[in-house]
């Protein structure tokens, strides 16, 4: 119904703004209904302005800025209505070091609401995990799970993350 849609829209909008400002350390972001008079059919525009920059099209944002804007919106929907679990496949790939740290901190905060399953090549992200699964392919073409009770170093060698030589 219309009321429900608007209530959800406003919550997501508020959380989107908060998360965006945390990731970018300022700036502003919001969702805009393209047709306020026809809420049940209206489309949604996304407005994102990194701190100190002028507003422009989403397409002009950098790779990292786009990923953080999308992440802010995604996490905003989780805060509006927690979803039991979330799977993220190498979403930290375009992020620089300080944005990766902010991503990890936010992820840790979000675990109060959801379970996260994160595929990554980034060592900092791995260190933030509660549980680690290594996948190897000693037998080409066949994936095998590796027990991760090893010390982090042995384990990284086992999954081929660092060469053991």
């Amino acid at each position: 119904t219309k009321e429900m849609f608007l209530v959800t829209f406003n919550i997501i909008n508020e959380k989107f703004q908060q998360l965006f400002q945390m990731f970018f350390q300022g700036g502003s972001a919001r969702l805009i209904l393209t047709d306020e008079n026809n809420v049940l059919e209206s489309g949604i525009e996304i407005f994102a302005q990194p701190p100190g920059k002028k507003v422009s099209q989403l397409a002009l944002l950098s790779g990292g800025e786009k990923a953080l804007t999308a992440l802010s919106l995604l996490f905003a929907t989780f805060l509006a209505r927690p979803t039991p679990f979330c799977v993220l496949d190498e979403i930290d790939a375009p992020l620089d070091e300080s944005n990766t740290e902010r991503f990890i901190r936010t992820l840790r905060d979000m675990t109060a609401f959801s379970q996260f399953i994160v595929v990554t090549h980034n060592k900092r992200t791995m260190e933030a995990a509660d549980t680690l699964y290594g996948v190897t392919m000693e037998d080409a073409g066949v994936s095998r799970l590796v027990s991760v009770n090893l010390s982090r170093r042995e384990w990284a060698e086992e999954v081929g993350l660092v060469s053991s030589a």
Partner: protein
Amino acid sequence: MRLRKIEIFGFKTFPEKTILTFQPGITCIVGPNGCGKSNVVDAILWVMGEQSTKTLRGERMEDVIFFGCETRKTLGMAEVTLTIGDIKGEIPSRYSEYSEIEITRRLFRSGESEYLINKVPSRLKDIKDILIDAGIGFKGHSVIEQGRIEKILTSTPEDRRAIIEDTA
């Protein structure tokens, strides 16, 4: 409500039964390029009812069944089971006396496919009902595939409505 474990058998690069159990918090899946990490993500999408072969990176749905390698023959079936636990009345009443639900999807090379809930043959629609009630909202944003984080931004204004509607 939370994810307990996933059992993958005959799906993509998992010709042997493989079980990942999930704890609360953050579970990281790591490993070298091409070892099968995104295939685990595809297995989660698939058991939740994903119908698009493009999202699963294949041409036909049979492409998810292990097609063999140098040391092993191709298999005739793929099967994935997702176990969801800690259920507190968030799902359709028919299942509410269970504390755990198992969702299973099978596909045979013949093209025949099966869906099961707690080992009982069911329809895809039943699985979708459970997921939507549980807030996993099939169309929802609970799974972000590799390289696709920006899809939330680039979709059309109408598509973006689904973000709000799924959550409402």
